């Protein structure tokens, strides 16, 4: 895998961020609905408002290197998104940026490093672990699948497809878990039977990234 910052002005990384942003904006209602089963119904709203601003600011981000670009996105997010998602997603983007400091192009291993950083940041920020019924329950297996694919030297697109499949399965599997973090945790066992909105969002994003693969 090689994502060049120079290639045709927009890079695979930029495309991916744009897909994330447009997908979150497009799924506002769906993500809200997921969050209203056992949360407070604003997950989609928070993400949509943040990523709307990302798309608005799109042309103005400093693109000196990939890390700086990602950092700009992270700043928009954390200044715009409130709720749990603001600090969680802001931290994730910031840590991903840190993981590729001053890189001009990305290898498969860099993608894994970015996700490692994001995951560590999310865990530190919110104190959640895998199994607590949060987006980590999709994001961590997704990253592990990419790590494996990269180790096997698989095709980027094939890796992405495998990762999306794992994300979807893991996200659906959160239905069986009891929420232990965030607002959903107040419901105790009543959260069993419905998946975690953040985890489903990870699956939806992974699938759209694959679909938009150029």
């Amino acid at each position, binding site marked *: 895998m090689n994502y060049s910052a120079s290639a045709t002005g927009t890079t695979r990384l930029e495309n991916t961020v744009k897909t994330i942003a447009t997908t979150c904006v497009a799924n506002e209602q769906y993500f809200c609905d997921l969050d*209203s089963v056992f949360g407070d119904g604003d997950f989609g*709203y928070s993400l949509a408002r943040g990523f709307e601003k990302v798309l608005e600011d799109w042309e103005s981000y400093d693109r000196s290197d990939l890390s700086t670009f990602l950092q700009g996105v992270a700043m928009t997010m954390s*200044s715009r998104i409130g709720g749990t998602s603001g*600090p969680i997603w802001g931290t994730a983007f910031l840590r991903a940026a840190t993981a590729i400091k001053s890189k001009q192009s990305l290898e498969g291993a860099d993608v894994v490093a970015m996700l490692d950083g994001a995951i560590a940041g999310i865990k530190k*920020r919110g104190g959640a672990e895998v199994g*607590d019924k949060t987006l980590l329950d999709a994001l961590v297996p997704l990253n592990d699948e990419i790590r494996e694919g990269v180790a096997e030297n698989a095709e980027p697109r094939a890796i992405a497809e495998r990762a999306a499949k794992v994300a979807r399965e893991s996200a659906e599997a959160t239905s069986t878990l009891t929420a232990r973090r965030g607002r959903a945790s*107040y419901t105790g066992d009543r959260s069993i039977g419905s998946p975690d909105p953040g985890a489903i969002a990870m699956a939806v994003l992974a699938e759209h990234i694959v679909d938009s693969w150029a």
Partner: protein
Amino acid sequence: MKKFINDPQAFVPEMLQGLALANPDTLTYVPEYNLILRADAPNQDRVSIIQGSGSGHEPAHVMLVGEGMLDGACPGDVFAAPPTEYVLEAARRLASDKGVLLLVNNYTGDKMAFEMAEELADAEGIKVRTLFINDDVAVEDSLYTIGRRGVAGNFFVIKAVGAAAAGGADLDEIVRIGEKVNAATRTMGVALTACTPPAKGTPLFDIGDDEMEVGVGIHGEPGRRRTKMTSANEIVDELLEAIVPDLPFSSGDDVALMVNGLGGTPISELYLLYGIAHARLAEKGISIGRNYVGSYCTALDMVGTSLTLVKLDDEIRSLLEAPAHIPVRIF
């Protein structure tokens, strides 16, 4: 959705705009950061008190900004903690030599935003402390969850630290008072209907015509159990049975009792509930030194109520009695 709104996304700013227009002499509105500040703050001889949380709980907290209570409120969108940057900006604008206290209801999103903001403010040389309010007994303690939520009891913490700050107390003393009041305060609520966030447009949960949600949170989070509607007497009994043994409140105690409406409940019903609670507590030998009946901390348009008990001593009582001047008023 039956609401008086224009664009659902403009609900919070338009509300804050109205609040500022209604209080031109006492409040400043900072639209870029969703802030409502006392026009005369900061005062370098007083600790500045800031409360942040999601919107949708009005009059909490934006309408509690004024002499003797908050120096500033930093609301997020409906039911969403404010972005970190907004909290930081509030701390910057209200930075005082005596320090800044950030009051936060104990929820994941708020905790993260305020902890990040505290670190950043601290790095900028602002003297700042954070205090978490967690009065909701509906949440059973657990190793895993973030712990009990902050609900209507936050009023008492705000009132007490606001009075202490007005009296010139220093930051350590104010933190001590805030922790003490928080530790003496217990709340539990019940919802008869779900609330409808403007941006969602439909009720947050389904609830049968004959059902109620006992232990509901102020964001419509489910509570302890879903059960059939019962009489006002039985509802008060169930709430008090959860609240009273929790501190515990015991015979001989003097308390403040708040009967709080969750947004869609008329004050007539709140007084009816007050009468029942008063009688029940009297039977237990608990006397009510101060009472508060009204909608103090709401969940948008939810039909519901919460009862809060605060164990009074001379210090807390005199802080609660101290005068304050805030937008919510009758005259």
